[in-house]
């Protein structure tokens, strides 16, 4: 039986725009803060994993040159929006395998103001002659001609598919989710935006891809988060002040998307999320009703709604009623995205999956300040990267 894994340090930079820093600075800031939080140093780490979607070239080794080169193995991981969680899980697997007893996981991203709409199509110098190419034998770009593959529309379609299959879900339910997350973010000093918006303002904001308006879409941004993990046997040897604040990783799961009929034209964000949640509940013995808070992947308001159902936070088919009844509000039945979520806390892609582990761990330690969910003992994190990769973690406050 593999050893349990615990979190003893966690940190994140405020998400936002850092034109004067590079991604190595951001990652180093988060890493040094997480190790200080753990009352540990780089010489205590036996393994390191670093996640970034855009900085692909040995980012981990670049960070080591700023925080300490000790010769330990470092894994550079990339898994779309599940990248940060993949870094955390890489360290967890190394500890569970018995190859390390303490490790550092970092997720970091610098996106700048890069738009996500894709290329406008380059002006060609040479003659344009239609010639089939690629696996679909295409002769010209098909975006906007054969539907959309750009994120706001893809996730709008994911939400509208749920609306087609279940009553009580429409534009207003999706907008209420954004209203909630913007409101939550007003209590989070680490959020990229901390501004409250009315439902009217959200519904009347510029439409991106119906039903997602601009205020229902996550922004681009920069930031980093880091987590220090230990084996349970190592934890027992550490200072009582470290043990007291330790948070148990009760489940750590990663899934990819299994084949479904529609998967070749529209990413299926549901099946792999359901698989991951079910495995996490089974691993931990936790029941959905035990959860005191959830940080889930609300890249768009339409995404958050379907995950209420996928993560079993509501009755089957009842995601619309769940938001209408205030269930995911910070004072509701199961508070969801009390950080402000990706919609308002921000979504520096590689950082996100580590940052929501920071968020839940901070609540379980009772250290979340104004946004603290009182008495939180059990929490869940969820991220999904299109392609697709899904990671779910269940964390618990327990004595060791």
């Amino acid at each position: 039986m593999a050893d349990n894994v615990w979190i003893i340090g966690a940190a994140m930079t405020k998400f936002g725009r850092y034109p004067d820093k590079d991604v190595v600075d951001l990652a180093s800031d988060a890493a040094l803060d997480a190790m200080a939080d753990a009352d540990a140093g780089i010489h205590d780490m036996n393994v390191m994993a670093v996640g970034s979607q855009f900085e692909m070239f040995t980012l981990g080794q670049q960070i080591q040159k700023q925080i300490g080169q000790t010769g330990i193995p470092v894994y550079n991981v990339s898994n779309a929006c599940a990248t940060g969680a993949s870094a955390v899980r890489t360290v967890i697997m190394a500890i569970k395998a018995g190859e390390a007893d303490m490790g550092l996981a970092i997720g970091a991203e610098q996106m700048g103001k890069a738009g996500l709409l894709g290329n406008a199509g380059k002006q060609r110098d040479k003659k344009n002659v239609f010639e089939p190419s690629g696996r679909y034998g295409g002769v010209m770009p098909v975006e906007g001609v054969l539907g959309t593959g750009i994120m706001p529309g893809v996730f709008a379609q994911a939400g509208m598919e749920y609306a087609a299959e279940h009553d009580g879900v429409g534009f207003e339910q999706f907008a209420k989710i954004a209203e909630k997350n913007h409101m939550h973010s007003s209590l989070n000093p680490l959020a990229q935006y901390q501004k409250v918006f009315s439902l009217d303002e959200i519904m009347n904001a510029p439409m991106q891809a119906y039903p997602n308006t601009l205020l229902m879409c996550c922004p681009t941004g920069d930031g980093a988060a880091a987590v220090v993990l230990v084996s349970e046997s190592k934890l027992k040897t550490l200072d009582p002040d470290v043990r007291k604040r330790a948070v148990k990783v009760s489940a750590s799961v990663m899934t990819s998307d299994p084949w479904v009929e529609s998967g070749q034209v529209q990413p299926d964000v549901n099946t792999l999320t359901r698989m991951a949640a079910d495995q996490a509940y089974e691993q931990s013995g936790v029941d959905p009703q035990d959860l005191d808070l959830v940080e889930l992947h609300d890249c768009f308001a339409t995404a958050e709604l379907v995950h209420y159902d996928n993560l079993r936070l509501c009755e089957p088919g009842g995601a619309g009623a769940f938001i209408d009844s205030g269930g995911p509000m910070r004072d509701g039945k199961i508070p969801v995205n009390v950080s402000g979520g990706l919609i308002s806390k921000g979504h520096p892609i590689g950082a996100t999956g580590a940052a929501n582990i920071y968020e839940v761990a901070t609540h379980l330690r009772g250290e979340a300040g104004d946004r603290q969910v009182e008495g939180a003992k059990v929490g869940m994190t969820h991220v999904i990267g299109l392609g697709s990769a899904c990671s779910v973690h269940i964390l618990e406050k327990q004595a060791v």
Partner: protein
Amino acid sequence: MGQQVPIVDYLVLDDGAPHLVAHQCESCGALYFDRRNACAKCGKTSFGTKALSDHGTVRSYTIVHRAAPNIAVPYVSAIVGLDGGGVVKTNIVNVDPDPDHVQLNMPVRMTTFVAGMDDDGTEAVAFGFEPEESA
């Protein structure tokens, strides 16, 4: 007067009425618009072809208002389940692009239109789906 070519190779223009065709796994029947090295559902490697229906229903849609500058907005993107099997991503055409006119679960049928022209005057023909009620 130039010729016409399909925008993608799963649109067939030169064999009767325009229609979509898919690679079909000979073992499990799974359908793919692109060529596959092996079947993502069952792992087998033999494929045939299957002509798909030009009628279906809207399983989901979005109305895209913001896109790269060379794409005309707003337009309706949809996921259409085809009668008799297969699911396709498409624009919904010949409909006002607003939620009052595009309906979930609405029956639609395939149509074609010219989507572009190259420097030799060859036209790229695309497919779209339109509401059954229109025209």
